[in-house]
């Protein structure tokens, strides 16, 4: 039996208090500056994608735009709506913002072995690390959901309530797929501590070993941060502004800030878990030995985060918003089974390899099994399609059944026709004869208009 790997976290928890404060301020400032930059950058990039210019008034190249926005919001009236639960209403933006910053505590910006020195004191380039680092990130992200839920509930208004509910359902649905995709990483790293996970990616990044997990995580992280194309909790076309409809002034800014900090956080997690963390990308690390030492890792880390943030912006500029039922279907019926089956595949291959089975043959068997399952499901689909077509044909041949008649007020609400149903002819206004009554569109007892 192989002995349990003990995490080497001896470098952490040894800093003097002033150094902890300096590093905490650094983490806070890093998150803040990245957010300030990425808001302007997003507006710029989306503008370019739509052949516009974008913000260009404040500061060089419009770079101080988000600072100007922040100051403007600060000077706006702080409205507390009449129906609101005052205490929770004021608390919600604070609850949303704090956990967003807190996740940065375990993000590794550089090597963990006391490489850099701050005022003559050697220290790891990471605020702290825990044996359960990734679990901690998941936990703080979940607390952030409370901010949104409480904001929706406490506003005492219809649209925010719907937005808050949607947001909860959305985030918990995608958290499952996200969690399962992390498990595959832990299989390889033997650890949940972030510094350890980066350390085990010295030779191969996990994005190459676990491409499916990475893809699932990429989709889930867009869903988790309520970003386009999954920005259903704040869908302007349906819910005005979603959970933040009733918020104004800096409280609104807090929600925006939390959303963007969360974007930075999930990008940092993706970088740490799949993209080699602070390690220099492949061609650079081959010819430059110093690339992974000193302060340089901070550069690679920032570049990777910015690339992932660009993906967020790119998605927003490219894809239209999804429908809610399609979105839930994607989460529950695609992402969860795919990530679960992938995790079990990875685990099986790894276990058989540990037991010294012939890897080629294992791969053959597993690949064959997957192919067989795919073929069976394809065949099942074809047969189901045929059966459905036959049923449809039979339905058309034998006139529409009594259930196919269109009832415009089904269930007491005005509804559009379902697929296969046709609208009744529009009742034209004829003479004011007494038989006009039978031309009414609404036939509750089902009589033919």
């Amino acid at each position, binding site marked *: *039996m*192989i002995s*349990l790997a003990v995490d080497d976290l001896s470098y*952490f*928890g040894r800093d003097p208090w002033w150094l*902890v404060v300096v*590093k905490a301020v650094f*983490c806070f400032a890093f998150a803040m500056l990245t957010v300030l930059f990425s808001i302007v950058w997003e507006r710029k990039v989306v503008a370019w994608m739509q052949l516009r210019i974008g913000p260009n008034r404040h500061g060089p190249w419009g770079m101080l735009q988000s600072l100007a926005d922040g100051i403007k*919001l*600060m000077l*706006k*009236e*702080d*409205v507390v*709506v009449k*129906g609101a639960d005052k205490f929770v209403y004021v608390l919600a933006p*604070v609850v949303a*913002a*704090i956990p967003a*910053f*807190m996740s940065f*505590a375990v993000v590794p910006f550089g090597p963990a072995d006391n490489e850099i020195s701050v005022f003559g004191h050697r220290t790891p380039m990471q*605020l*702290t690390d*825990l044996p359960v680092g990734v679990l*901690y990130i998941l936990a703080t992200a979940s607390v952030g959901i409370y901010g949104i839920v409480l904001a929706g509930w406490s*506003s005492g*208004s*219809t*649209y925010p309530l719907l937005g808050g509910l949607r947001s*909860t*359902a959305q985030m*918990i*649905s995608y*958290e*499952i797929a996200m969690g*399962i995709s992390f*498990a*595959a990483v*832990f*299989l390889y790293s*033997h650890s949940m501590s972030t510094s350890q996970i980066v350390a085990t990616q010295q030779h191969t990044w996990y994005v190459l070993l676990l491409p499916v997990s990475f893809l699932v995580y990429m989709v889930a992280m867009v869903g988790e941060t309520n970003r386009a194309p999954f920005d259903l909790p704040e869908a302007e076309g349906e819910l005005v502004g979603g959970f933040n*409809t009733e918020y104004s*002034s*800096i*409280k609104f800014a*807090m929600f925006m800030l939390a959303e963007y900090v969360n974007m930075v956080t999930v990008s940092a997690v993706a970088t740490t878990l799949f993209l080699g963390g602070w390690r220099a990308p492949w061609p650079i690390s081959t010819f430059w030995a110093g690339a992974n030492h000193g302060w340089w890792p901070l550069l690679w880390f920032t570049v990777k985060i910015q690339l992932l943030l660009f993906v967020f912006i790119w998605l927003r500029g490219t894809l239209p918003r999804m429908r809610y*039922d399609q979105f*839930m*279907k994607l989460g*529950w*019926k695609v992402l*969860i*089974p795919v990530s*679960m089956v992938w995790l*079990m595949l990875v*685990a099986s291959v*790894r*276990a058989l390899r540990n*037991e010294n089975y012939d890897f080629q043959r294992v791969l053959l068997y597993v690949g064959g099994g997957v192919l067989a399952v795919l073929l069976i499901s394809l065949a099942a689909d074809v047969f189901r399609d045929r059966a459905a077509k036959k049923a449809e044909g039979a339905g058309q041949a034998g006139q529409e059944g009594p259930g196919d008649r269109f009832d415009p007020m089904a269930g007491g609400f005005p509804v559009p026709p379902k697929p296969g149903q046709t609208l009744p002819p529009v009742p034209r206004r004829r003479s004011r004869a007494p038989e006009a009554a039978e031309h009414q569109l609404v036939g509750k007892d089902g009589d033919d208009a």
Partner: protein
Amino acid sequence: MNAYAPILVLGGLGAGFAIFSVVMASLTGPKRYNRAKLDAYECGIEPTPQPAGGGRFPIKYYLTAMLFIVFDIEIVFLYPWAVTFDALGLFGLVEMLLFVLTVFVAYAYVWRRGGLEWD
């Protein structure tokens, strides 16, 4: 310092920033009373009165929450298993395959009964 203490420092920093901003904004902003401004926003019409006790939600949200708990607990079991996977060997693999299979029976049942359909 303890390895967990820096988290509190960063949390305190975030909390200080958030609370400071919210308090400052209530001091710096103008205050002009207007009855319509304090109404809940509903596209300009008179706001719908909020039902007592919060009203009723579609059952779908409860169902999603229940399913989430099932899978989240599954994940809680998966994490320690994944971390110590190499030490557990084939035994661990078989045990976890059986466990996942058990959960997937429930999953398949929910799927067939339409519990995952949103409409």
